[in-house]
């Protein structure tokens, strides 16, 4: 189900916890599985459950609780914009509107070509860099003025 490389990384995570606490690695394992598969299908979650010796429902609980797990397919680039108050005071609402207009989609929608999904985020802990866009969960793009957004989109579309 998952590549040898992903499994090796999961094993590294498992080794961080006491031998009888493999479940502690579930958050990292799900993040790795999502990175490989694009989203977390029931089959993938069941596989992670089996791999870590957990009940499947315990894995579903975790996957549905934390917002960065995608339980349904998303576009090739998931763009998440923080619009919380500190970011909004520094232009996050304009950044979000600009992205919506450029991509022709609203929150939680994916472009027809499947390349971009747009999500509204809550505090990333980077308010000093506002506006911030989190790209595919792992890349924080800072100071995202409309011009910087245009540049980012052009780069991602290559």
């Amino acid at each position, binding site marked *: 189900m998952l590549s040898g490389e992903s499994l090796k990384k999961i094993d590294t995570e498992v080794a*961080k*916890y*006491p031998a009888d*606490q493999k*479940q*502690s*690695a*579930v*958050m*990292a394992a*799900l*993040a790795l599985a999502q990175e490989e598969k694009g989203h977390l299908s029931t089959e993938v979650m069941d596989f992670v459950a089996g791999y*870590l010796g*957990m009940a499947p429902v*315990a894995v579903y*609980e*975790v996957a549905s*609780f*934390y*917002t*960065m*797990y995608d339980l349904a397919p998303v576009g090739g680039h998931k763009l998440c914009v923080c*619009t*919380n*108050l*500190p*970011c*909004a*005071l*520094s*232009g996050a*609402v*304009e950044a979000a509107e600009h992205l919506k207009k450029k991509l022709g989609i609203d929150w939680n929608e994916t472009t027809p070509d499947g390349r971009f999904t747009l999500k509204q*985020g*809550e*505090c*990333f*802990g*980077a*308010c*000093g*860099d*506002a506006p911030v866009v*989190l*790209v595919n*969960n*792992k*890349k*924080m*793009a*800072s*100071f*995202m*003025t409309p011009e*910087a957004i245009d*540049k*980012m989109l052009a*780069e991602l579309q290559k």
Partner: protein
Amino acid sequence: MNSAHPPFDPGIYGPEAVLMKGITGENWRLKDYEARGGYAALKKILAEKMAPDAVIAELKRSALRGRGGAGFPTGLKWSFMPRQAPGAKYMVCNSDEGEPGTFKDRDILRYNPHQVIEGMAIGVYATGSTAGYNYIHGEIWDIYERFEEALAEARAAGYIGRNVLGSDFSWELYAHHGWGAYICGEETALLESIEGKKGQPRFRPPFPAGYGLYGRPTTINNTETFAAVPWIMLNGGQAYLELGRPNNGGTKIFSVSGHVERPGNYEVRLGTPFAKLLEMAGGMRGGRRIKAVIPGGSSAPVVPGQVMMQTDLDYDAIAKAGSMLGSGAVIVMDETVCMVRALERLSYFYFEESCGQCTPCREGTGWMYRVVHRIESGRGRQEDLDLLANVAENIMGRTICALGDAAALPVRSFVKHFRDEFQYHIDHKHCLVGAHAAVVGNKAAV
């Protein structure tokens, strides 16, 4: 990524910096940290075989208080650990920084990760713990990766592992990443999360010092708290205390966001006037007038700007001004901000992030958001202001963790201090700030 990130400004931490002294933006590696005196505190403690009680006594003298938001005295917290209890005991660092307005731990971990590692080593030593975990906010992946790199350096150099620097002190330290849940910044939710579960807070008692991670004695401190420990152990608790004020020892990193010219982190001595911090941040953006400040992260009550301009930045002074120092996240708003809209956005946040465990919070946060939303969109009713007060009051003190209070406090304080704006929305079905745009400038898009 093509972030338009401005060049690192070492002056941003201010001339009073202790935690971030000598930071250039590039010198985060082990050799750099050692070159500026890093790991000397740990070496000294191990060489002198300092008694754990003496370490804790020094911390108590420093009046270091928890930098994550609650402000609990760190030395006292460490003294709760049952040092003699056999078996595993844990020290956990809370780097799950998601309180709107707060972005200091990210910078500490990015620019000075070894200081946190050294602080945790001293904490593990003083509390008789066996291992540590650093729980890092899911959204700052590059910081998590850097911390893993720093851990590898510290292990290779013998600061982490068996018989540290040839002593009989052994410990382990690992990084654990979150994946998007504000509630995991609450310490018992964070423990649940490390255990591989939903991050829902635990009922207390039992407290983590007795029953924490995996049911073992555990101490949880904020990143900035750990980062302050090495300096205290090297220079003495008294010297740290004297950097600040009685009961408010040391320096503190304030994250300044919102309507200032230069948002960012500024390390100043506790007791510094807010007006001075505002000046360091370049003053009000565009020279506009200050309207309001949330001085301690979004959960802290809002304070009118003119009151804040007369307030000093320490735990007791901010409490006197009717708010709290919290995490040191200072959100500055100018006259163009509609306070109804600002509260609507914050209320949505708490509604979104309530873990759903306690009925008053799960239902109350949504209720408050819907009422504020209807006032903001011109459908408010006269009785809504009393209703908001009533719902807020019925959440407070009736939930397992502090998220309920954190959602209620902004509602109460916004309505208290800016009642005229809420009333105007109800009476006129539109915004007071928008109506006065000619005077105060175009309404901020919040």
